[in-house]
């Protein structure tokens, strides 16, 4: 069956198709991006300014950091929709520890550890108990959120440590225009671009997502790879949670509601396939950037929320459709 798949691939697609496919893929998004840039710049004098552009970078950073993790998970052939609830969860240990010890770093470490634990749980349920990842994380989506409500009693934990560092992480800017969050975001993006392209782990992730049985025949354990992917996804979601907490200056029980859909939409928009094995972080980045710019631009144009919803929804459908079109006629 693995074979027949490979054969069909080979015979469906004429040579050179892949090149066109990739280029069309990213270039298509780049064109879309450029078009949006032009439209918004023409429509609003405030859009195309250093300040606003640096704002955009700051604003997309949370989505992107999480998107990097989710992309890798999707490439491995699984999905996680509990990251929104996770954002609310991991902010708790951060704030609690930070208020207790006065150390941001200590808090951050504990928070990331907490995130990793959730990743392990998700991963084990999917790989060991063989429960479909969408269902598993749907359960977690409820479970984590409820847990947060219970332990916080729906009272936010605000920052008593008065650490400037904590505020700066999410709100500070280098040279007054480059947000620290953006620097972190690009660092993480480039790091994992490298991981996916240049490390055994990265390539094997594609193998596992592309065809688990073949991977297994090559002595790769899909289970172990997917588990790792789940952990990475949760940890990166936790990093985004730290940035959010810093931007909010507190741990808020309602944080991250609907975040998971936002990230999934952006990543798929960027050409990462829900089927696994296909996609790359450059695409994911462009997907996030496009949605971020749409949101910011429509805000700049004072478009009301109703129209924002309608427009964003339509653009998502359009983008995914174009992607499909491209895949069909190479």
């Amino acid at each position: 069956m693995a074979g027949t798949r490979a054969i069909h691939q080979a015979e469906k697609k004429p040579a050179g198709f892949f090149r066109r496919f990739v280029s069309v893929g990213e270039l298509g998004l780049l064109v879309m991006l450029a078009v949006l840039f032009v439209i918004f710049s023409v429509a609003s004098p405030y859009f195309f300014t250093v300040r606003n552009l640096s704002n955009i970078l700051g604003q997309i950073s949370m989505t992107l950091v999480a998107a990097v993790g989710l992309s890798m998970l999707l490439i491995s052939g699984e999905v996680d929709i509990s990251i929104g609830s996770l954002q609310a969860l991991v902010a708790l240990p951060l704030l609690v520890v930070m208020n207790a010890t006065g150390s941001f770093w200590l808090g951050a470490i504990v928070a990331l550890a907490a995130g990793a634990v959730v990743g392990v749980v998700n991963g084990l349920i999917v790989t060991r108990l063989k429960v479909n990842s969408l269902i598993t994380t749907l359960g977690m989506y409820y479970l984590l959120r409820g847990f947060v409500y219970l332990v916080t009693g729906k009272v936010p934990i605000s920052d008593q440590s008065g650490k400037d560092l904590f505020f700066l992480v999410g709100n500070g800017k280098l040279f007054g225009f480059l947000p620290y969050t953006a620097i972190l975001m690009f660092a993480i993006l480039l790091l994992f671009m490298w991981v996916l392209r240049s490390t055994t782990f990265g390539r094997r992730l594609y193998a596992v997502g592309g065809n688990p049985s073949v991977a297994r025949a090559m002595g790769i354990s899909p289970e172990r790879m997917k588990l790792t992917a789940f952990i990475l996804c949760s940890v990166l979601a936790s990093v985004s949670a730290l940035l959010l907490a810093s931007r909010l200056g507190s741990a808020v029980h309602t944080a991250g509601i609907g975040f998971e859909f936002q990230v999934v939409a952006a990543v798929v928009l960027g050409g990462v396939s829900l089927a696994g094995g296909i996609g790359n972080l450059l695409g994911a980045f462009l997907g996030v950037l496009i949605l971020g710019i749409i949101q910011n631009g429509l805000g700049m144009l004072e478009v009301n929320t109703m129209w924002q919803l309608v427009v964003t929804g339509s653009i998502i459908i359009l983008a995914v459709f174009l992607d499909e079109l491209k895949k069909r006629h190479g």
Partner: protein
Amino acid sequence: MKRKLTVLAVVLLALLFTASVAFAGGGEEKAAAAGRIPKRVGWIGNYMMHEWYQNVQKGMKARAEELGIELVILDSNQDMARQVSLAEDLIAKNVDVIILTPAQQEGAVPIVKKAKAEGVPLVIEASAVEGMITMVAICDYDCGYKGGVETGKYVKASLGGKARVLAVDLPMLRPCILRVDGFMDGLKTIIPDAVLVHRIDGQGLKDQALQVATDALTADPNVNVIYGCNDDSALGALQAYRAAGLDEKKLVVCGTGGEGNAFIHAMQEGGPYKVEAAMFPEAVGYECINMAVKLHNGESVPEHYVTPTFALTTENWNKYYSLSGEVRTINWDAVNAIPREPQCGKY
């Protein structure tokens, strides 16, 4: 091939941004500091699609027009992360004053800091944020309290002096908790032995309130007072009560807010919906603009500017509102005449 593309893409993006830096001159120049009246005021609403904010907006727009202020209205749509971004957007748009309705109080602290840093005056609407200069808001506790007193009177007069209360709360928001507390305290001043038999979370949504109230009323069918921390909560619970086939003669409902026209219809139909702890959103919006002007001119302002609240009843509601078709208009004189508490009984 792929690597080439990556490079290409990064380069392209880099270009776009550097270009923008070069471009930057245009938007960067601050709007020339205005005279007495700010040129542009920006409002970050929290849930603009909700009727309450629609009416706050009415008041704001009315006042802004009177003073010839350009009003920029944005909506965080209950997304805290978005709210911070929008604050940045507004600062980028060089507004003279920002009015903020926090999607979440604690979550708004960084915005206060940002505004301070950028030297943009900030008016907070609705709920207090640590480190803020000033807030325009009702007193939630006192609003509920007034509702409680008025409800108590009705209970004493028509329901035999016993009050068993079902409160449909929204514990997610502190103001709602305050309202329920206030309501009970107010009620107890008239009916000392009033009991809060069940306090449920209706999420401020009518369908949710309906569902949880259905269950709660099964647990305590002998409830005779329903209090909702907003109108939808109260109306949802009332629907549940009706559906349960319980006797409407034995019930009084008190809603909070006067967000839209729903409570007026409810009162007009002559059912158990007797009391509305009104919060006059139009007035809130109106005062927000006034406060914005004050701040712009560096006048001294109170930390909390209290806007009026009043317990409306089936008899007197039309002194404050008139409804023609679906358009409700506020009677300013009556509303401004309402005595306002210097500061709230509880925060």
